[in-house]
């Protein structure tokens, strides 16, 4: 599939060369952020450098959401993944959404999924984490 027809769902997801997340790391204190920054919330410095986040991690917390706002498909598993010391918010995907299959401390790895296609034929690709 040509990458020209795919875009990442969020700016901090990179699809090339293989899918991975990129954080804005404060060059002064090392704090990491996934959003657009004005300054570092930890040390107030204003210089950041992009860093690749490991694609494998451990489930530090999760909830199985069975009741959500209109338009949000349920059930799904919301989680916080510890990726080598950087916390990442994500869904756990490619896994039955029940407490028998999702557990604290479970090893997971980044995976991608197509969210939808727009009128120009461009696919938006999102990330999640699947059991490793």
């Amino acid at each position, binding site marked *: 599939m040509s990458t020209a027809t795919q875009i990442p*769902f969020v700016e901090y997801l990179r699809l090339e060369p293989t899918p991975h997340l990129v954080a804005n790391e404060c060059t002064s204190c090392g704090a990491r952020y996934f959003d657009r920054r004005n300054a570092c919330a930890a040390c107030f410095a204003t210089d950041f450098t992009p860093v690749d986040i490991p694609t494998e991690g451990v489930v530090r917390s999760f*909830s199985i*959401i069975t009741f*959500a706002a209109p338009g*949000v498909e*349920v059930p799904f598993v919301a*989680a916080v993944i510890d990726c080598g010391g950087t916390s*990442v918010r994500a869904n756990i995907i490619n896994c039955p959404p029940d407490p028998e299959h999702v557990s604290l401390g479970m090893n997971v790895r980044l995976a991608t999924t197509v969210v939808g296609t727009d009128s120009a034929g461009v696919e938006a690709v999102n990330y999640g984490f699947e059991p490793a």
Partner: protein
Amino acid sequence: MSRSDDIWILGIHMTKFGKHPNLDVVDLGAEAIQGALADAGVTMADIGILAAGNLLGSGSIAQQLQKQVGQTGIPAYNVSNACATGATALRTAIMAVKAGEVDMGLAVGVEKLAGAGLLGAGGKAKADNDEWERNGRFGAVGPVDGRIGTESMPGVFAQIGMEYGHKYGGADFELFAKISEKNHAHSTLNPLAAYNKAMSLDQIMNDVMIAYPNTRPMCSANCDGAAAAVVINGEKLKTLSLEQQRRAVKVSASILTSDPWQEACQVLPDVNTLTRSAAHQAYEQAGVGPQDLNLVELHDCFATAELVHYDNLMLCEEGGAVDFFESGAAHRDGRLPVNVSGGLQSKGHPISATGIANIWEVCQHVRGEAGDRQIEGAKVGLAHVIGLASACGVHILERSAA
């Protein structure tokens, strides 16, 4: 004008929490204010500052209330601080009194929330046939809620409880449900609670799952309600009647914190660090420790949240929240009763009222006026509230020596 560092609650009132289809926010807020003034034995003419909160309202609740209960030209502050709005209003009034600008202040919080449904979640979906367009601080091409974790409150607080389980172990679905069972049992003695029926562990665990491990009765109840308080400095209090002095409740500590930066705090709200910090400051300011408390009203917006705050408020050893609960300490006949009002899960959580209503509950006990649910001999209590993301209010209240 007298100046004193001593701060007292002279009068306080909460309305019945629940459904009030025939009352609007002004009716409810006015009822709370008039109740607090009557309890204090003063009128609007004595009040030097008004701080008011109504999170989902128009932003001018203070002036709307003044127009019903008394327009005296005093400064009116409209405050907004998520679920900590009520505590923030009280804190605002206390700061003005403590600064010596006024002798007496009034704080009120009111919310109409019955039938509001799920809070915190949602987002605007892309219209069909549009081209992808990046929005927001993550540059997302669509709503992230449900696609990159959750923004729903039950799910966020579920993860906060589960994270504690991951760190220390022992916290599972059944444990969280037992916490809810305790609070629903407590609520049977509270006529002002929105719901006051006991629920069995089976009923709680088999009710509708909202966000595992929180079932519906483990979530705070959306409802209508208001609460208000009159605060006064120690010098002025001495000029009032002996009865007013006897019933006044000492505010031994009044603390408001926000969350200091921590790794992951912008990924999952960190309700722990700021609560621990507020508790630490409050104990120091009051000169009391957790072992001196006779009761605690803490922010159990979800059963999963109550557990972590046993630890954050230092009611137990670090990492010992599960053992603390399993020992029976938090039950009303336990060593340190927690949420004898029924907590947010049964008493209800009309957002802006909550941070004053939990102080009202503690005041009732230290005054010896809590009726059937009185904790015998209660002298000192702590009230805690959390708003995302994040604000934490902690107040320590003590019985008058007069």
